């Protein structure tokens, strides 16, 4: 590569981008923010409570690439929400926390993936939401409020009875759903597949696939609680820590070494916030990678051709956040009879369904739902089935399909369900 040795390194104070002034590294705003002493202003002290990332907004170039990439600006409502503008108002102290703006961001990660100055906008949002939740600094939508209090009381966002969390599995007669000989491999089901009628079908499909492949796995049953992804991204750090503690203690007690999650959200939050310090102790991966393995290793045999045209909606927490884009496509292509067509935005450029970052708990008006953009792209592929690999995406997309007759011809399926059809 041409003269490219401009590598980032760690300096004493933080990331070193090679800027030097008088021989010393020039600190980034967020590194500077960490340096506070007794004489610092009270406000500054309060701000240091916020994560280091928050201060990165100081270096924003106001270039607008994030806004261009943000799915919210693709709505016909004409860009009500712009991350660039949001950052500028934030810097000028003009953010109106009493408005809805703070809750529009779905944490999809598009902005972060294009930002030339690597500003972690999602973390900034998280900290601001934390101000609202923990210090009552502004407006919190009612539906989000109830999801949060439900997580505090019932360890799931839908006021469901924790004792009924494993009910979905009771009607299944699966031998592999047992607690011994599992080599510490656990299937983490998640809230939606545990309680939601539609979601349960995904949980069942996933377990049936494991059964057919003859893989023994552990399962927490009623002991499982919400992974906390939506709660963390909504800014409720305390509740998140509680949920995390319950789950990690269960993992330890049962000697779990490897966790497969049905939802990419559970995967992402565990990878980045559960096991950060325990990387060797636990491994976490999304179920789709196990499915891919089961198929490529020949443990699952597909015999029935499924003669359908499909398109794949990339869940944000697989694609943009974790760069898992080829495996789902290879799975689909390996199914006999399936024709895969891509939407205009796909893989890491995929558009969010609106369900992330607590978005699934918000009521967005017709015409303001991100799913509509996605489903319009689906229509133009003329696919029979819109396949996805995340219970939240599935729920968001199917809801819109049901409530908008424009999208009637589209069938929404989880990839597990589709694979199961072929067996």
């Amino acid at each position, binding site marked *: *590569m*041409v*003269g*490219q*040795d*401009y*590598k*980032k390194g760690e300096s004493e104070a933080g990331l*070193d*981008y*090679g*800027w*030097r002034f008088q021989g010393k590294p020039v600190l980034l705003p967020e590194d500077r923010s960490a340096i506070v002493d007794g004489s610092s202003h009270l406000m500054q002290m309060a701000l240091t409570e916020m994560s280091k990332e928050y201060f990165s907004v100081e270096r924003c*170039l*106001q*270039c*607008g*690439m994030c*806004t*261009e*990439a943000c799915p919210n*600006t693709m709505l016909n409502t*004409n*860009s009500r929400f*712009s991350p*660039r*503008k949001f950052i500028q108002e934030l810097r000028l102290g003009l953010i109106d926390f009493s408005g809805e703006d703070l809750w529009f961001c779905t944490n999809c990660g598009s902005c972060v993936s*294009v*930002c*030339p*100055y*690597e500003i972690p906008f999602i973390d900034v949002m998280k900290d601001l939401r934390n101000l609202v939740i923990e210090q009552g600094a502004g407006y919190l939508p009612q539906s989000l409020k109830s999801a949060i209090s439900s997580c505090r009381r019932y360890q799931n966002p839908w006021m469901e009875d924790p004792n009924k969390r494993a009910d979905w599995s009771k009607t299944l007669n699966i031998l592999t759903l047992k607690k011994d000989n599992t080599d510490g491999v656990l299937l983490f089901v998640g809230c939606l597949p545990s309680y939601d009628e539609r979601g349960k079908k995904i949980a069942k499909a996933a377990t049936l696939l494991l059964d057919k492949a003859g893989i023994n796995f552990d399962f927490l049953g009623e002991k499982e609680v919400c992974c906390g992804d939506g709660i963390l991204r909504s800014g409720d750090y305390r509740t998140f820590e509680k949920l995390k503690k319950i789950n990690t203690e269960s993992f330890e007690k049962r000697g779990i070494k490897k966790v497969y999650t049905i939802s990419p959200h559970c995967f992402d939050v565990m990878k980045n916030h559960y096991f950060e310090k325990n990387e060797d102790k636990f491994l976490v991966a999304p179920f789709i990678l196990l499915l891919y393995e089961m198929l490529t290793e020949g443990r699952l045999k597909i015999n029935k051709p499924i003669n359908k045209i499909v398109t794949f909606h990339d869940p944000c927490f697989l694609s943009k956040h974790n760069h898992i884009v080829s495996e789902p496509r290879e799975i689909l292509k390996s199914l006999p009879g399936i024709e895969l067509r891509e939407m205009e935005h796909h893989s890491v450029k995929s558009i969010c369904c609106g369900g992330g970052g607590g978005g699934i708990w918000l009521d967005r008006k017709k015409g303001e739902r991100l799913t509509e953009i996605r489903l319009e792209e689906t229509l133009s592929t003329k696919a029979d089935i819109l396949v996805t690999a995340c219970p939240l995406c599935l729920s968001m997309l199917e809801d819109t399909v049901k409530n908008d007759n424009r999208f009637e011809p589209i069938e929404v399926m989880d990839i597990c369900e589709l694979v199961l059809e072929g067996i």
Partner: protein
Amino acid sequence: MRVLVLGGGITGLKTAFTLSEFDIETIIVEKSSEIGGKVKRYDKIFPDFRSGKNLVKNLIASARNSPNITVLENSTVTNVAKNNRSYTASLSDGKIIEVDAIILTCGFEVFDATRQPEYGYSVYPNVITSMELESFLNPEGPTKGKLLRPSDGKVAKRIAIIFCVGSRNMKIGNPYCSRICCSYSTKQAIEIKENDEEAMVTCFYMDIRTYGRGFEEMYQYAQEIGVKYIRGRVSECSVLPDGNIQVRAENTLLGKPVQGVFDLVSLSVGMMPCVDAEELAGIFGIERGKDGFFLSKDDDLFPHDTSKEGVFLAGSITGLKPIRDCFLDAMSVSGRVVSYLTDLYKNR
């Protein structure tokens, strides 16, 4: 007294020429098959729009005519050994030369636009780089000065220029501003407009950094003749079935998304250290900054000296400079080398 000048761009040529006026013998060692560097490809140069080609032609002619200057093309230094006071340099063509001092004038390299795949360079034929645009604007170039689209040879009427490609970007590891792309892009926009009144040129920029004397005036003039400037960094180019390029950005001054369709898109690529920077640093045992460009001993007091006695730097090898600053560099390094040689010979 004999000096090796490595790199025959404008800096190297002007340095050799200045030294020759002091009756100092120079050997220009140029890697490519022809001296002249990048400027020999520019029809016009900012800020005064004189001919870059002619400027270089004259420099080449005076170098070739000077009895003090020897030009060795298709050659470079592969090894140097310091003797008591002189250097023995081995060249790639097998020659071995003995010199009193060495001046490195190897210039810069432009950023490889394929490293920002969102712009589709090398995938969409109608997305070109500013370097290619220079040759399109050259009446002696491949298109005889016409802006013909690579995809179908049609005359391009709607042109977008995207600034800051490969610069001011931490993600790709180049946080620095390349300093001259704002100015050369504005120059190119003016050239397009002046060649073809009907052409529409839209520049997508983040900040306009036309910092030099006369540069800002050039920017004002561009706006006067109708070059459009939109403040917003382009996030993506996509191709339409007819080969047109769709560009998306946010107009950050209005807070509104903009989408435009263009016949041709030029990427204003930033500057990278010269291709052999790493190797040269090794051969000469001298330092480079984190940005990869070479470091002088002291930016203020010894801007041309390196940590090795008798090895000097000039021109864009220490960071991008417009042509006039390269000339200034060439003349000041000559002064420095003359004083160095005088000292060297006084003590003999």
